[in-house]
């Protein structure tokens, strides 16, 4: 297993370099101008100076090599420095990946936005799993029961009604009519766990987006769990287990669930990068300025370094969680051996 992980990790490096080149080429080919939001009365010479100062006019390969250097040498050094409080080389004047719109280091902005994305999307993800798996298991075990029918109906609705609809309805009901919850998310709020008001403030601003997203996440996952359980419930080994006189609990939770979870856990692992990439629509509707919103805004402003860095990080996460999924698969199913 260890060798397998090392091999996969090494193989990921050329993959990521190729990905970064492809992202870079797409962004470079796409027309766009970081000065396009300036008033039309700003003359072209001034726009040209701005573009020059951003390094927009360098040749493609020069820009890419510069970016590679910043991403793989300067930024890691910077992270090491800030963790261990050291100063490697010329840490004072070390160049970093600078966003064109805010002129601030792109990674600092990404780091600053992680909390709100993880709070909302992460909690919604966990809730989604906590709802989906029990619902899926019970629906499968009691197939065609009232619970199964209701569950199927609710999950189908949750899956087929888009978030931008349920989100707006939630805002209309709970913010406009009832006035219970704020319709936007205050990212500067720092939760003080000793103060009920502070915690309640955080709950208030999370409750609508988390509910809407959990419902959506749970819908797909519970269908998947149900299908996987049903496949296994009719297997011969289940009948064998029952005929050996095992208690029903043991049959369902140890034998059937264990086998049914293999594809479900893989699916969950593969969805984790999605948490970081942000639920772009949800973030937009509830005004949670997280990573998804950052990506959209940066694309709109032709902020190439920011888009490049964000998409590359998503690529890293996807490659990494693919590996995690494969490893988990091996852990859950002893028949699978990678060495």
């Amino acid at each position, binding site marked *: 297993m260890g060798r397998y992980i090392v091999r996969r990790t090494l193989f990921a490096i050329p993959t990521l370099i190729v990905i970064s080149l492809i992202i870079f080429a797409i962004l470079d080919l796409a027309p*766009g101008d970081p000065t396009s939001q300036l008033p039309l009365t700003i003359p072209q010479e001034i726009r040209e100076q701005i573009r020059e100062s951003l390094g927009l006019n360098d040749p493609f390969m020069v820009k890419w090599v510069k970016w590679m250097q910043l991403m793989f040498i300067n930024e890691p050094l910077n992270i090491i420095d800030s963790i261990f409080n050291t100063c490697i080389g010329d840490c004072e004047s070390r160049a970093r990946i600078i966003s064109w719109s805010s002129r601030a280091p792109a990674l600092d902005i990404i780091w600053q936005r992680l*909390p709100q994305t993880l709070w909302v999307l992460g909690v919604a993800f966990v809730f989604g799993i906590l709802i989906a798996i029990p619902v899926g298991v019970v629906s499968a075990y009691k197939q065609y029961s009232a619970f199964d029918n209701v569950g199927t109906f609710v999950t189908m609705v949750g899956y087929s009604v888009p978030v931008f609809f349920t989100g707006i309805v939630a805002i209309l009901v709970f913010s406009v009519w009832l006035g219970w919850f704020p319709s936007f998310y205050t990212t500067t709020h720092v939760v003080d766990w000793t103060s009920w*008001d502070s915690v309640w403030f955080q709950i208030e601003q999370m409750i609508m987006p988390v509910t809407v997203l959990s419902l959506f996440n749970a819908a797909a996952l519970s269908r998947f769990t149900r299908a996987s359980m049903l496949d296994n419930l009719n297997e011969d080994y289940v009948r064998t287990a029952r005929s050996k006189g095992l208690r029903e609990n043991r049959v369902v939770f140890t034998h059937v669930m264990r086998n049914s979870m293999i594809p479900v856990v893989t699916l969950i692992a593969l969805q984790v990068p999605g948490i970081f990439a942000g639920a772009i629509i949800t973030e937009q509707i509830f*005004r949670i300025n997280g990573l998804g919103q950052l990506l959209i805004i940066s694309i709109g402003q032709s902020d190439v370094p920011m888009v490049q860095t964000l998409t590359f990080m998503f690529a890293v996460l996807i490659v990494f969680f693919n590996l995690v999924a494969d490893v988990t698969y091996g852990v859950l199913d002893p028949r699978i051996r990678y060495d």
Partner: protein
Amino acid sequence: MKRTRLLALLAVLAMVVAACSPSDGEGTSTTGDGGTDGSTTTAGPTDTTAPPTGGNAGEGGNLLLLQWQAPSQANPYLSTGTKDLLAGSLVLEPLAEFDPEGQVVPALAAELPTVENGGISEDQTQITWTLQEDLLWSDGTPVTSDDVVFSWEYCSNEATGCATSAYANVETVEAVDDLTVTVTFTGPQPFPFVPFVGYTSPIIQRAQFADCVGEAANSCTDQNFAPIGTGPFMVTELRPEDTVLYEMNPNYRGAANGQPFFGSVEIKGGGDAEAAARSVLEIGEADYAWNLQVAPEILEPMEAAGNGTVYVNFASSVEAIRLNQTDPNGDPRAEYQGEATAPTGGQHPVFYQNEVVARALSMAINREELTAVGYGSTGEPTCTFWPVGEEATTTFNDWCLTQDIEGANALLEENGYVDSDGDGIRETPDGVPMSFTYVTSTNAVRQSFQDLIAVYWEQIGVEASMSNVDAGLFFDGTCASDDCIWKFFRDIQMYTNSSVGPDAVSYFLGFLCDQIPTSGNSYGGENLDRYCTEEYDSLYAELTGMTLDDPNRIPTIHQLQDLVLTHAVIPLVNRGTVSAFANTIQGVGELNPWDSEYWNIEGWTRSS
């Protein structure tokens, strides 16, 4: 054995959970301590405090401003749009600013320089400003004329990449003494209130920005996020494209008079204009929402909820149709007519100095209807493209306010534009069908305009083939695609042009022959319509020689505008700036379309 695998599974789940619930404090421990503001932000209109008059500065609590396009940073010189200029304008101040009527009023300057008080030289090449005495930066150090000089030096370094045209005509800026500074222009400037006037060119502190000139400007994140200023507030924390937190500036010159009323300000971004309008007007959870370009049928019911009021004011943002004036007679500027260089299909030299067609197209348009459909109360039908103060009083084009299909048809008939082949589309006297390409940016309002205008023109035998281009490409200054407005490879394009300041001279520059963008000058010019006449050029030269109080000045501006209206520009709607305020916010006065909407924020108060 089984137990260990189960533990492994649990461990994976635990990792997922752990990754999803970091404490909010992590990664956000920047210099500002905005944490306590959380509880005040939801405070609605009921969060009342002491009466606004006679109070102490800063006792008004928190003011929550929604800017759905959130600021990227607070240095206006590096701004990527109005959103950043606004964020800077709470902190940084210019020498003088514009009031809602477009009049120049002193800000940091003691008084407005004029020719009479010797502030403006007789030959109009110099302007001398005197700073108010005892001005302090928010860090407590005195403001001197050297800071004014530095603000210019900062921008005049090309490598800084300054996003303002305010210093374009400045030769030098020199400090005479600690409070006096003289700006010398490269030539006579009849309107000298451009550099250091308005929120696009405020004064920044030399001590703070000294190491941020040129290429270093991009790495000065701390300075760009929290510039030291003289204004009523100072930045405590800035999160790009998200939130800006401000606190009252204790050294603000109005502090003795109880200004500013609010102790802190929060600018919150994200979402869209409609969501921002809903927050202020329907939910009542914020005090102000900026730039509400929302369809009238959505905005009006929101206002009816009674929490807030929509403020509208008009400056020079006119949505207009521009007719391609390219000279068809072998002119090197005529790229759009060439076969190889015109992939987008423009072929029509018909608009070149053609009064008849321009007039007929304009007569056929129902501006009342367009305004009602696209803007409601936030727009006004207009027949001028420079609707600024007295300079707008030209009545030359007033006939255009009433749609006159019959008149337009008659005009075309008389001049030989007839439908000779019976296909419903007229031909020019030269036999070219009057079928035009008409492009604008992708935008619901603009497309409904195109739909309506196509119908109007159909009634006068003119066909318009409508297309729209993504705003990012349409307004792309690099002109990477052939769809940018500077190339104008079509017959007709439509967009809103607006002037940064109320200066007619710099606005009317955009119709001079030498301002035509061509492949030769990398499409760097402001005369996108390719309008070019000797008459206009010589009249414009006269205007640049006139002082502001010259009695011929306004008639000349009228004449210039009338010339352009005759041939090149068909104005449609004067678009107001639209923002909403909670009903509890007092002291706003009129919305300022010429300067920052926060220009008088120190005087805003909250009533109970």
